């Protein structure tokens, strides 16, 4: 066989693969509908949809810059460029007002929009694909009963070749497993309900599972901790760094109030998650907690609690740091662990300062924990305007050394600059 034959054979094969691939990836347009069916909304279905939308944190990505719920346009940073969230209000032109339930279900399950275009997996359909028909219907009813907001979404800003949508079909071939969850009959109904919510609409793994180079969750490291918006989403599995092992009771309280006496406050992106879970039913939060608590003991025996520290002696820090800690921090974070009105704990119980990187500790010191308007919760003033970068760096190193036996962080300077660039 001559070289010419080999080359033309290879080209032929390539053409066949590309055409075949495009055919395989091709999805039909689903016809427009004139108006969503919300004329006669069943109140119970609507409420169910509202709870599921809260559990799914839909509005956290789909909120408009104006604050209009579900109207889209929020910029989602990814390693491949910026993606702008869709308008999922029932506006017929810029939202999903002309989408039938079938089109909505296909988007949730297959990551394809009504016109048959591939949706990027920043929309976590790899999780939503596990949702039941009933739950997807309830979400559809809830979303299409929202006020329609005309809000055109800017085009995504992605680098080549990621700006070519059909390549998402290849991503799906590798990483999207479209299947409902089969109940595990060796486990309780509550655990199974929790697994359904956590693995499905809750998409907890989207932040708490590390991602591979193509942005897909590494299934063999599920819940070993990930990254989101500069924050570290801590491990939920046996690699948890919590000083006190989490129980289902503790998680229930933490998830529904944003705070627990032995773990402290939700911060960063987790604040919104716990705020949203106030809208969920107590049973669903309890189920989520039961499943999450099981992750930490699934792959080994439960960890012993780390004995609380009254503070290691700290050498090699500028002398002012101990004074800054005493004057700025210790009034609330005291070693007696008296919990005052700010709900601050002794830092010996803090997970953030036990994590492998300083990202979360640095961000909390800089921006504090904002007070919530709607419910009593933990509060910490922002120290970004009070302390200099140098002081924040020394203070971060100081609390790590004083309240953990972990090795010193080496990323503090970088994290402070990164957080400052992002506006803290």
């Amino acid at each position: 066989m001559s070289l010419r034959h080999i080359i033309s054979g290879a080209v032929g094969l390539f053409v066949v693969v590309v055409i075949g691939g495009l055919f395989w990836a091709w999805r039909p347009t689903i016809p427009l509908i004139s108006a969503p069916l919300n004329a006669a909304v069943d109140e119970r279905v609507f409420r169910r949809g509202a709870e599921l939308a809260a559990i799914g944190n839909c509005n956290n990505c789909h909120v408009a810059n104006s604050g209009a719920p579900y109207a889209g346009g929020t910029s989602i940073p990814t390693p491949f460029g910026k993606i702008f969230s869709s308008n999922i209000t029932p506006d017929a032109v810029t939202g999903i007002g002309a989408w039938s339930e079938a089109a909505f279900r296909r988007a949730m399950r297959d990551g394809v929009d009504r016109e048959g275009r591939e949706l990027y997996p920043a929309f976590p359909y790899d999780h939503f694909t596990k949702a039941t028909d009933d739950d997807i219907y309830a979400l559809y009813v809830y979303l299409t009963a929202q006020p329609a907001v005309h809000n055109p979404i800017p085009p995504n800003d992605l680098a080549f070749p990621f700006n070519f949508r059909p390549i998402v079909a290849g991503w799906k071939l590798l990483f999207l497993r479209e299947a409902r969850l089969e109940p595990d009959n060796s486990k309780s109904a509550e655990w199974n309900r929790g697994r359904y919510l956590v693995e499905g609409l809750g998409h907890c793994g989207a932040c708490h599972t590390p991602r591979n180079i193509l942005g897909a969750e590494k299934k063999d490291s599920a819940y070993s901790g990930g990254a989101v918006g500069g924050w570290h989403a801590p491990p939920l599995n046996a690699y948890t760094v919590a000083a006190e092992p989490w129980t289902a009771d503790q998680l229930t309280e933490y998830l529904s109030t944003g705070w627990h006496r032995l773990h402290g406050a939700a911060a960063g992106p987790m604040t919104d998650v716990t705020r949203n879970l106030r809208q969920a039913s107590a049973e669903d939060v309890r189920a989520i907690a039961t499943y999450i608590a099981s992750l930490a003991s699934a792959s080994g025996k439960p960890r012993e609690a780390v004995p609380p520290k009254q503070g290691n002696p700290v050498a090699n820090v500028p002398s002012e740091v101990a004074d800054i800690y005493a004057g700025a921090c210790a009034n609330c974070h005291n070693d007696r662990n008296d919990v005052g009105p700010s709900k601050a704990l002794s830092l010996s119980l803090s997970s953030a300062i036990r994590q492998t990187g300083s990202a979360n500790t640095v961000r909390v010191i800089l921006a504090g924990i904002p007070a919530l308007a709607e419910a009593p919760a933990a509060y910490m003033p922002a120290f970004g305007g009070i302390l200099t970068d140098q002081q924040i760096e020394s203070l971060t190193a100081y609390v790590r050394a004083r309240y953990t036996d972990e090795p010193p962080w080496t990323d503090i300077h970088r994290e402070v600059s990164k957080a400052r660039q992002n506006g803290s």
Partner: protein
Amino acid sequence: MTIALNVNGASHEVNADPSTPLLYVLRNELALHGPKFGCGLGQCGACTVHMDGRATFSCVLPIAAIGSRKITTLEGLLEDGKPNKLQQAFIDEQAAQCGYCISGMVMRAQALLRVTPHPTDEEIKNYMRPNLCRCGTHAAIMRAIKRAAV
């Protein structure tokens, strides 16, 4: 231990533990009673002063952290011993009920007007959020800030 502080344009050597929050030094050592002790936790804003022009809770600011940065209190806003434009606007609008929060309110509002001379209502509300008023004179405080911004 003595620590040098620049307060209202004057240098002071204060003799205090370096971990002492600035608020106590201002009130107890320098007799500047504008800033108030409210919560001591950085929650209420009654202790607000300026550090290099930025509104800062003085109750969670240890003097060891200040260095050469310039502190201004309510007293430091006076012009020739008289209330400045914003302070006068608070008086004209009778923005104080019990008055405990007002020093902090004036300081935060002054910091806002420095960067945003003509704030919208929304900008005022957002910026003033860290400062609480138990009496509920927020409407009058809003009017005072807008009066000073004209």
